[in-house]
């Protein structure tokens, strides 16, 4: 916990040193002023009671009030400065790290959670945490001051106050943590309730549920969970309130002790009326401190997990850049040389000593069942992961020797789960190579290659809902845009992952024809479920269990009567007879 707090300070001070420090100091001073005013008040009342010189103590007392307000005002300005620095600089730092992190951090569930937390823009929360720690220090300073003040009256009061403070804080803290833990433990149930409620207000789910007459069943499930949650809450609240009860009891004892000692001393003639009134007057805030302190403490201890997330994030190892290999090999095109791969934390080999070459200028179709390793081949090629064994060559160089920019300039990729940028059509395509943003010819060629020539009319129309006049595209239109992005900028290598998955089957054949044209003279890999796409490729690689099972032209593989021939037969069977009868 202490280390996390240090970390928090480090993060915040690294972005705004001066004002952040000043804010802490101001909070401490404001904390000390509260007990100080008790002393001043006692002098004022003594003076008033005796009819003595009361103007100076009055000015002094009111002066302290003003000083305190002044300090708080300064603190607000400091806070604004710190927040500004955190709101601008911290996210920038985060993005830079996101950009440099190896891809596996995005896919492994543990690190993905961390990244999601950090991507939630933690600036404001981190500052709040910092401020809460400041408030704890401030209140602690007040408490120390009060300890001193009541100690002046009698040592017993100091001891009593200290005991009360610790006991009360411990109890309140326990109650708050108990409730917080209960809420944490119930997030599963809450999530289930949200989920069930969501089903009941979801259009598609309702279509099904109404047809199946299953709405009452789901409402029943929901109610069951809700009842359980409330029952647990009632129990939890009972326990928490019992702890609060103990804390309140201690408070009453302390007030009783304070009043009794004061009365005792007063009646014994050992206490002035001023001190009597001012100390008892301050008793409410004295007692209240315990509550606020434990409140801040509980918040801080819960929120510190955010700092821990951030620390984990900062400790993720960044991806190494490229390096130059001495000399160059003669392996042209794309070569997978004995490549094996298992996902981190798994022993199953997704790719198992895979060897193949895509010759320069050739288009290779990658086919195989779900889970045969097709998408892993692409991930390795894009260096989202590094092979566990073996090497991959591009243009005769180990791909590890390419810097990221170099690789990107050589290779255009359209992933199956491509991204839909809410930018203009032009930007969507030109993100493939921003140097050519204004090159109409290049844009035209890329759009043509993706059978998206009609988008030329609306190059500068914004897409998505970000702009008021933004236009929304259908899935197929977005996909063609993603393919155009990959084709943009005359890159020698093109990777297309299920490029027609979202396309209307009626339009598919047109797409294949366009691909055939635009991939001429380039080296390409196309992954597809639909074997018809394989027919336009030069050669076909069939993956099975992470190994190259068959490789050859369409005719060769059909003649071989192996896996590919079987798949082809199953798919084309739908059409064979119709052809004959037609």
């Amino acid at each position, binding site marked *: 916990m202490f280390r996390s707090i240090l970390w928090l300070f480090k993060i915040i001070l690294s972005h705004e040193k001066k004002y952040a420090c000043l804010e802490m100091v101001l909070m401490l001073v404001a904390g000390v002023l509260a007990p100080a005013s008790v002393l001043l008040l006692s002098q004022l009342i003594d003076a008033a009671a005796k009819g003595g010189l009361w103007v100076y103590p009055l000015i002094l007392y009111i002066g302290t009030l003003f000083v305190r307000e002044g300090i708080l005002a300064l603190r607000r300005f400091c806070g604004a400065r710190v927040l500004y620095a955190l709101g*601008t600089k911290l996210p920038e730092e985060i993005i830079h790290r996101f950009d440099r992190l190896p891809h596996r951090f995005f896919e492994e569930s543990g690190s993905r959670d961390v990244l999601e937390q950090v991507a939630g823009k933690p600036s404001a929360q981190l500052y709040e945490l910092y401020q809460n720690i400041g408030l704890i220090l401030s209140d602690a300073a007040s408490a120390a001051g009060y300890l001193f003040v009541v100690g002046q009256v009698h040592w017993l009061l100091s001891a009593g106050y200290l005991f009360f403070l610790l006991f009360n804080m411990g109890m309140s803290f326990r109650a708050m943590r108990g409730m917080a833990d209960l809420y944490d433990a119930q997030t599963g149930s809450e999530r289930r309730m949200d989920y069930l409620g969501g089903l009941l207000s979801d259009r598609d789910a309702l279509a099904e549920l109404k047809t199946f007459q299953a709405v009452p069943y789901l409402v029943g499930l929901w109610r069951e969970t809700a009842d359980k949650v409330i029952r647990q809450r009632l129990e939890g609240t009972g326990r928490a309130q019992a702890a609060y009860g103990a804390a309140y009891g201690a408070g009453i004892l302390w007030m009783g002790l304070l009043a009794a000692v004061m009365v005792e001393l007063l009646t014994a003639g050992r206490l002035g009326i001023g001190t009597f009134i001012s100390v008892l007057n301050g008793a409410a805030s004295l007692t209240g401190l315990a509550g606020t302190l434990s409140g801040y403490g509980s918040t801080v201890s819960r929120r510190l997990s955010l700092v821990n997330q951030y620390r984990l994030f900062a400790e993720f190892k960044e991806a190494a850049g490229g390096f130059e290999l001495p000399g160059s090999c003669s392996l042209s095109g794309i070569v997978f040389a004995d490549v094996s791969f298992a996902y981190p934390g798994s022993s199953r080999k997704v790719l198992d000593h895979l060897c193949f070459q895509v010759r320069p200028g050739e288009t290779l179709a990658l086919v195989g069942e779900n889970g045969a390793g097709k998408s892993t081949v692409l991930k390795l090629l894009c260096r989202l992961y590094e092979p566990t064994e073996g090497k991959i060559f591009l243009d005769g160089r180990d791909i590890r020797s390419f810097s990221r920019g170099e690789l990107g300039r050589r290779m255009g990729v359209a992933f199956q789960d491509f991204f839909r940028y809410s930018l203009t059509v032009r930007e969507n395509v030109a993100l493939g190579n921003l140097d050519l943003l204004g090159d109409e010819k290049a844009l035209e060629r890329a759009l043509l290659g993706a059978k998206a020539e009609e988008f030329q009319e609306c190059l500068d129309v914004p897409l998505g809902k970000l702009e008021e006049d933004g236009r929304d595209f259908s899935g197929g239109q977005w996909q063609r845009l993603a393919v155009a992005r990959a084709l943009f900028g005359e890159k020698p290598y093109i990777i297309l992952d299920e490029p027609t998955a979202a396309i209307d089957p009626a339009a598919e054949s047109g797409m294949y024809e366009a691909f055939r044209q635009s991939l001429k003279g380039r080296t390409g890999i196309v992954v597809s479920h639909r074997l018809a796409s394989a027919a336009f490729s030069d050669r076909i690689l069939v993956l099975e269990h992470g190994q190259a099972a068959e490789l050859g032209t369409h005719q060769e593989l059909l003649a071989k009567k192996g896996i590919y021939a079987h798949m082809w037969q199953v798919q084309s069977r*739908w059409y064979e007879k119709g052809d004959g009868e037609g």
Partner: protein
Amino acid sequence: MSGKMREGEREKGRKRTKGKATEEGREKRFILGRIFSMTLKSSGIYGVLAPLYYLAEGLFPAAETVLYAEFFDRAAAWVLGSGEAAARLSGSGEAAARLSESGGKISGLLGGGEAAARLWLCVGLLAGLYLVRSVLAITGSIAINIGVYEKLSAFLKEKLAEKCSRLPLLAFEDAKVHNQCLRAEECVKQEQISGAYMLSIVLFSCLLGVTASGTVLASYSLLIVPLAGISVLPHFVRVRVLGKAFYQMQKEQTVSRRKADYFWQTLTMPGSVRELRMTGASGYMEEKWAAENGRVQKELDHYRRREARYASWCAALQTAGTGISIGLTVYLAVQGQISIGELGACISAYSRLQDKVREFLAESGKLQEKLRFAEDYFSFMALAEEKDGETRLGHFPEEIRLENLSFRYPGGAYPAVDEVNLTIRKGESLVIVGENGSGKTTLTRLIAGLYPPEKGQVLWEGKRLQEIRREDAARWISMIDQRFIRYLLTLRENVGISFVEKMGDDRRIRQSLKEAGLESLKEELDDVVGKLFGGRDFSGGQWQRIAIARGLFRPGELFLLDEPTSALDPVLEAEILQKFLQVLKEKTCIIVSHRVGLCRYADRVVVMKKGKIKEVGSHEELYARKGEYWKIYNSQSQWYQQADVTEL
């Protein structure tokens, strides 16, 4: 877009009620009344206990002030030894008499003087006051947390979910209803109604507290109260002015914020980070983000500093008010117009009074907002529900006839289904083909009665489907939808939900799973499925097969299969489609499919284009006709044919 629409509605709402401010006021009170009655209904005794605590809490500061004043006065009387204070005390009637009586007992016990006994009595009273307050705080806290927040929220959530399920399905296609639903959900999620209930009680408690404390202070000196009150007023102005400025800024920033958030997402989401990295465009995105974020942050900073300035001035004024009040009180005390004890009690009473007034001013603004949310909820709850038909139907009809059937989605420019005539005979299988957006899915939903026709009718054995009891029609229908649902429940529920009555029948569930090609699934039937609740996640293809098992589990007569195999790989797809035709041989099947090849195995094919039926007939008939169907069929088989030709 949705945001815009929402604004538009608000605008309209404002215009409508502008001229009728009084009516709006009545409406607001009305809503508060509904909130109260709903709370009492759902939370029972808790709903009463919560406000009781706040009433006591409102009176507490005044009681504290009175008690402390007496306590201090007696102390002062002891110290000064003057008879004046004691005389004032004993002169104050019955209460004092009772005090001195019990004080006498205590003094007897302690063996001290009467004055000392009175001091001890005050100690006891103070302790008693705190004890009562503690007990009330604990009961109040339980009542608020459990009764008002938990129970009321659960009640509202349940009612909302039930309401959603009772709306006609078509309502969800309506952007307006959709937005209304989102706002009602927001209202419940943010506990706005419970908040409104508590807030109105807190406000009342504040008023009570201000009045009580003010009365006590006024009894000391009439001058003090207005002084303490006026010094807080600047806060009120501040809250109003800054509140408006903040709202204005938020409104102006919505576009920038949305953009900044969007660019931020592209820079942090795995899918886009991966792409930006390949294309080297992350710098470009970052610039875009930094530009928007910079603007937002600068304005926020400006606002924060302005707020800090305002707050500081107000605090200075308030402190000045406190200072003058204290000065005045001290002066009055020195003059002998009030006692030393009253002076002491006043000093803390000022800041308490000011805090209460401030709280009242700050919180009262929030009530409006909460009531607006509550209004959203109530207006959603008032939407018309789906009407059930009354005609009974004891068996599955021999034929389903569509007559001049037309349908248009709310706000749609063209009819999605346009003048369709078709007769479906019991036991036949029908494949509907056509381009995306040609109305295939809509047609199946009309046949199932999920949407009401705009024109024309769906006749089940001559009876209009809308007039047949839902229950009587639905029991014959099963479906497998393209947008199938991944229920994050148990495997058993995933399959059995289509026929809840037989959910407990293990053999039957396994049988359906087998028919969908899932016999090798390792999961137990009662294992929870899906990552969100700790189960295993399935691939898209597996989920689809679970949906297929679900559709087959229901003992229907009419099967509506809408692209039931879109997520499967081709080999499996062929297997499953063939199995369908086998298992459902005796049933009435309507299959929407991209896979035109399937048509050869169906009794009839329906070709749709732009909402109209272009062609109907068997595969052979339509293929021979060389029309629309022939075109679609060839475009798909072309690649396979070409390859075959070259092979030959």
